[in-house]
């Protein structure tokens, strides 16, 4: 926060110095009328850049010479290109197009550049899906709404706090947050099948499609999936195979 304020103060100070032209006289209001900006009262001299190249070829030749002077051997791969391929003759595999020598600069200068193609091997295990809703509820013919269904209860377990126009008592509305037991109800056959021991798979298929209620078991299924004997014991405990 302090750094933001400091930055803001610096910007304000810098911009204040830019408004010198308007510190005296009137400050224009562009909504009504925008006058032409005041001109500087000194002679402006155009800078002349005598290092510019008149033609692209001159620049390329000059650059080639400087490269060779720096390291005569390093740039030998580019000899052919600078000799004739840049004019459209021949084809050098280093270049995507003959008139673009910049394509290979990464090859020499960039330490991260190599001929190896790296593929992003990360993947998302879960299939990306949109968040779905029952869109029939937006059908104009869907008329399921109600309004003002007042209800009253004499000694509720929970009630709404404070004011209430509905006559509820003023007990505090609280919900306990006890640590819940582990839920194993989600362990479904189809999620286990691809990875399990064949004997366990047969056992699971024998149990299907009966629904397994595992929540009375304190261990997770992880220890059972490749242990047919233990799983059979578990199922027997649950009466799964007898129902």
């Amino acid at each position: 926060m302090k750094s933001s304020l400091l930055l803001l103060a610096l910007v304000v100070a810098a911009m204040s110095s830019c408004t010198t032209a308007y510190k005296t006289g009137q400050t224009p209001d562009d909504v009504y009328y925008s006058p032409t900006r005041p001109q500087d009262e000194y002679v402006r001299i155009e800078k002349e850049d005598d290092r510019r190249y008149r033609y692209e070829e001159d620049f390329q030749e000059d650059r080639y010479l400087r490269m060779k002077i720096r390291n005569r051997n390093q740039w030998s791969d580019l000899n052919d290109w600078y000799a004739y391929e840049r004019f459209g003759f021949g084809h050098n595999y280093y270049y995507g197009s003959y008139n673009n020598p910049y394509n290979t600069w990464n090859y020499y200068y960039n330490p991260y550049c190599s001929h190896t193609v790296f593929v992003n091997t990360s993947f998302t295990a879960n299939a990306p899906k949109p968040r779905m809703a029952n869109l029939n509820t937006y059908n104009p013919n869907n008329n399921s709404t109600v309004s003002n269904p007042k209800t009253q209860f004499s000694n509720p377990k929970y009630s709404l706090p404070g004011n209430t126009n509905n006559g509820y008592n003023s007990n505090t509305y609280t919900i306990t947050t006890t640590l819940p037991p582990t839920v194993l109800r989600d362990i479904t056959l189809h999620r286990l099948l691809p990875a399990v021991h064949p004997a366990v798979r047969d056992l699971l298929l024998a149990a299907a499609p009966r629904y397994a209620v595992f929540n009375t078991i304190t261990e997770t299924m992880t220890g059972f999936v490749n242990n047919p004997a233990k799983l059979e014991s578990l199922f027997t405990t649950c009466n799964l195979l007898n129902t």
Partner: protein
Amino acid sequence: MKKIIFILTGFACSATLLAQDPTDALRYSWNVSSGTARQQAVGGAMASLGGDLSAAYVNPAGLGFYKTGDFVLSPAFNSWNNKATYYSREEKDNRKYASFGASGLVIGSGTEKDRKGRNSNSAFALAINRTANFGSNLLYRGVNNQSSYSHKFLEEINGVRDANAVAGNYPFGTSLAFNTYWIDTVAGGSSGNYQFQTRAPFGTGLIQENVVESRGGITELALAFAGATHDKWFMGFTLGVPFLRYDRTSTFTEADASTDNNNKFDYAVFTQNLETKGSGVNLKMGVIYKPVERVRLGLAFHTPSFYRLTDQYSASITTNTENYQGTMSQASSLLNNNADGNFTYWMFTPYRLMASASYVLREIEDVRKQRGFLTADIEYVNYKASSYSTDPEGDNSQGTKDYLKSLNKAIDNAYKGAFNFRAGGELKFTTIMTRLGVAYYGNPYQDIAGENGNRFQLSGGLGYRNKGIFIDLTYVHTMGKDVDFAYRLQNRPFSAANLRQTGGNVLLTLGFKI
């Protein structure tokens, strides 16, 4: 082969309840005008007035009035209050946060002769603006004896006759409800495993509570160009790059309102987290014509914003079924390979059309003789034109395409076109200015289940301009109404929470002539 089909079927029907629904589309398009303090003080009208940086976000032709330059900063402070009525009970909540309005740089060129010998000038602007704020805290409670949130889960698995599929294929809602016994098989346990019921005793009443915390907004970077000929015709366009971020945590709770301690339901808590982020692009273009001195007429068109967005979402449910199964809790990550859900998609917001007129008293250089202006905009937004499509690099399955097609149809059903009005004026006393404005944003909803909404704004402000610096201070008071549905049902009654909203926005613009 059967096993493979079974697995594929499981993925195909892994519908979720953290729903991508029409309300998402409206959130990103039903926004009030935002800009500099001066523009906000006159109701947000800027489609014909010009000469202000915020023209880049309304009618970029207005930048063509600039022959000088401005650099402006617009910090803001917002307060947003929600008063919600749900089953006849009122609750309030509010949120306060810092924000900003249009800030940036505009540089105009001096008058030059064009090829035909006409006087012409041009201007360029680079600006950033918070075009939408999603910051809000919402709370509502009420007693419902007609339906339970869990009916939404039951509707989702209508026709599914496999308890194992219910237990695993709906990891962001229904499976969590089933695994924690908010919904159960008809006979309980492993019996009757192809029919399902809710454990929530809605007939004797459920105390329902929804707490929704929203954060984020849309910040738009604008690159604008404008030109003028003979100070009579002004034309301009803006390339806008909006960056969108929306974070929402909602906690829906329903608890047994009866005296029965043995009815196998005490309470259930459903927590959902959603983060949407991405960026987009849009074009704004417009023209302003001055038929006679003092009068300005403007037309502007905003193309739909094209967004590439990614949703990341998760959910958890805790249910207490008393002496039946006790308290149980489960999170979506347990059923989704320890990962949040995610989905990347394209979204298009509606196009906008604006027409405007302004009357400016004394358009002359001597600021002592400038007296004031009146300006008014009318805007048409076709909210039903919002649409979604799949991202070519994302999930392009037929099921997803079909869902988004249905979603676009639902948007057609849920919304309509609406007119927005903005008007305001300024009185100028050489260096001091006073301003008043008003704005009305029309109802974007079709009435399907009691939906209704609008926004009305009153604004006022002061300005000071001297010695190359200008300072504008504005207060905007917003009053609105809206609806929020904790859940929608196809076959059972459900109700909206009706929202009365008020907002206060204090905006300061500090500007420098350059």
